[in-house]
């Protein structure tokens, strides 16, 4: 009951964040909303693991947390510098 209520609330929050991801005026609104969706999906996977009484789902949640961080920083860097490898033009070295 408790975990079902938590999962329902998190789904509502994911729907709101996805609305901003689809309708954001700039690309940074979309990146921010996708990052929030990733954090919420980490919580949703954890809650689902407890809901089905299989807490091994926490391993997947931990992996999602790692991938979410790397992915958001990579997309931000790609949008800013049009590339992931080397610094472009007069930008500083390895800048994020």
């Amino acid at each position: 009951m408790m975990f079902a209520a938590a999962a329902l609330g998190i789904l509502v929050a994911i729907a709101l964040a996805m609305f901003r991801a689809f309708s954001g005026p700039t690309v940074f609104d979309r990146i921010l909303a996708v990052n929030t969706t990733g954090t919420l999906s980490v919580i949703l996977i954890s809650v689902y693991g407890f809901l089905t009484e299989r807490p091994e789902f926490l391993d997947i949640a931990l992996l999602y947390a790692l991938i979410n961080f790397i992915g958001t920083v990579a997309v931000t860097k790609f949008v800013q510098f049009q590339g992931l490898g080397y610094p472009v033009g007069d930008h500083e070295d390895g800048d994020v």
Partner: protein
Amino acid sequence: MIETGTLIDIASWIFIIAGLFFTITGTIGLVRLPDVFARMHGAGMVDTMGMALILVGLLLHAPSAIVAIKIILILAFIFFTSPTTCYALARAALHAGVKPMISGVTDSQKTESEKSKT
């Protein structure tokens, strides 16, 4: 005399309801606030208070020590990476020329009102 299990259930309910309140408030802010930098404030609330309170609510129900350690790992990791992401995103937005909202008028609204004046 209240049993320990009931007490843990009540505490877990309180933590999860508080976490859901912060999560949904933060996402409503993400939808309704006027500006990228203002929306980061709402997203930060989801990433700190909402996430932490819901995971603490789950932590009270952990059946074994390894599950508790994994929850604490997730908590600590998101707690450290969320400000880093927000910082990188704000810096990239400033680099790309997004102007922060000053005195209640966003950049796009200002250009529209200036267009209507001329």
